[in-house]
């Protein structure tokens, strides 16, 4: 659970750098993960996501900069055991032990009381749908099952900060959905940082997001901010009239972009107390319908994927928050 008198940030990176030989994996990364958020970390291959996770967990040591977990400095097993957990990428669990043995071992190490360990292991196995495999050896599990076991161990006990590196990688669609639903259900109870290439997934479960590239922060903020959900309306028209002049007349002062190829109008506006996205959407639709236009789709903002594809990757930026 989130501690009441705690730092507002669960994880911060301030000017963190890390090199592997000549390659800069992180180059002055700035990151601020608010407590209680579900935070998405996205970026192209080699952007530094896994290195960021590894430094946060103390597996790797930063060459420079300051890392702060739960307001208590860099990772320290004595201080953070059981409070910070992770699903590391490409880390293999012991192959020859039973699932219950592995989970029991991890639970004991992180200090779960002996009397509770059995029920806690059962809870986790149920959570990741592996109860029927409890007494199987880990080497008999499929890739997807191992992934689920990896996710399960990250939720042993009651961690305050959970870092999941590509959690749904290798899962079938149903399992991936179940894991996404579970992660989303944890909102407000603990901080979860998720890295993924699947931007739709990040958009559906996260409330904050950061894009990193070449080890630097390129963009970040709440999902609403990054996708301009509160400052942009996108209307797609079917074949027929294209009454752009009427919309411009109805929304003077707002920016209206036309995409004739996709028959899309993108309206950017400044939010005011008496002028929210809903108000702008209503005015634009009224003008379009009055002019005989046929509406195909209406969306607030743009998809996360579109937002990131539009970003000038390689240009560092500060988070909007």
């Amino acid at each position, binding site marked *: 659970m989130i501690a009441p008198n705690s730092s507002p940030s669960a994880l911060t990176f301030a000017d963190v750098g890390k090199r592997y030989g000549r390659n800069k994996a992180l180059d002055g990364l700035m990151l601020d993960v608010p407590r209680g958020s579900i935070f998405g970390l996205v970026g192209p291959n080699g952007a530094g996501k896994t290195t960021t996770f*590894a430094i946060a*967990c*103390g*597996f*790797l*040591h930063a060459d420079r900069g300051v890392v702060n977990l739960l307001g208590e400095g860099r990772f320290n*097993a*004595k201080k*953070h*055991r*059981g409070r*910070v*957990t*992770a699903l*590391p990428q*490409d*880390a*293999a*669990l*012991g*192959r*020859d*032990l039973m699932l219950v*043995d592995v989970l029991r*071992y*991890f639970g*004991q*190490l*992180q*200090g779960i*009381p*002996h009397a509770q360990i059995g029920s806690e292991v059962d809870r986790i196995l149920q959570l990741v749908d592996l109860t029927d495999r409890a007494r199987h*050896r880990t080497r008999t599990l499929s890739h997807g099952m191992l992934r689920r076991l990896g996710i399960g*161990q990250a939720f042993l006990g009651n961690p305050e900060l959970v870092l999941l590196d590509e959690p749904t990688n290798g899962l079938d669609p149903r399992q991936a959905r179940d894991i996404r639903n579970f992660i989303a259900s944890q909102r407000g109870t603990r901080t979860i940082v998720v890295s993924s290439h699947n931007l739709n997934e990040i958009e559906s479960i996260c409330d904050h997001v950061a894009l990193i590239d070449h080890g630097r922060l390129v963009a970040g903020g709440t999902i609403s901010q990054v996708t301009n959900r509160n400052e942009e309306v996108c209307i797609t028209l079917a074949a027929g009239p294209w009454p752009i002049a009427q919309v411009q007349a109805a929304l003077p002062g707002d920016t209206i972009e036309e995409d004739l190829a996709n028959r899309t109008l993108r309206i950017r506006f400044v939010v005011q107390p008496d002028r929210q996205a809903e108000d702008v959407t209503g005015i634009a639709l009224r003008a379009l319908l009055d002019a005989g236009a046929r509406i195909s789709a209406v969306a607030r903002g743009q998809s996360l994927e579109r937002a990131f594809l539009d970003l000038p990757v390689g240009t560092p930026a500060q988070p909007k928050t």
Partner: protein
Amino acid sequence: MFGPTPFRDIFLVAGFELREMTRSKRAFLFAALYMIVAALGSYGFVQFLTATQPMREPPQRRDGRPFDFNNTPSPSRPELPAATVTDPNRPTQGKLFQRGSPFRGILSGSVDEQEAVDFMAALPPITLFHMLISLMILPMVIMITSSESISQEHQSRGVRFVALRTGRAEFVLGKVLGQGVTIALMTLLAGAVCMAIAAWKLQDFEFFPTLSALLLFWPRLTAYCVAFLGLAGLCSMNTNSTVGSRTFSLIGLVSLWFISHLVNVYITFLDVGGGWARLLNAIDFFSPFSHQNDLWYPETGRYGGAMASLIFLGVFYLAIGLINYRERDL
């Protein structure tokens, strides 16, 4: 709540290591390797006795007096009970190392002083054989098997699951403790194998003297292993692959053996003294091989000192490794 403590973590990691070794059959492989060497070695030794003993020794009583074949024991002569008479066609385990025997020459080559040779010669031969073969092969066995223990976790990155839950020092010490317990049990088991073969093949095998001698030397053997476990741990914790850790361990082992022998040769044959000798002795101290001879002495101070030095070396190697390991990337 019983909160985590360093010792608790060390024992948890050690227990998990033992369970994992058992489940993965690594322990069986390790045991089999050692057992096969011990069994074949002791069998060969007993066969050697079979081949040489009747030629070198006249049949004798257990009290050590020569047996007079013309004075055959009988129920009417209770001072010579039939049970004490050995069969001249089967080997005995005693009197192998009589003064002047070529075997004593072998022992003299192993240790420096007459006192140790006498002590060794008084041991049941199969115990002596077990100790000699263990001292010879255990360093190599430890380097081959235990050096993978931690590096394997690096290679698979499985260490990351544990590093989130306990300190790196606790992890390393737990791993080494698990390996140490395995080795200690294996040495006992190998001793039992040697004893079984001796009991099977030697006519006048004495169970309790052999067992007590074996148990007397077991702590010394274990202390000897601690030093090499420390060396294996040092190499294992600072490499990312099993091949790398095994290679470094074997190079380290050969280097220490070489240093120890080089120093001894230098001091003995070139007869250096003074500051040079002190410096060379100081260097020699850091090789476990230089303490091996002292394990053969009967005085508690001498073998106890050697045991303490060997345990210190094990801890020293681990401490050196941990200096880097605490800050290295996993």
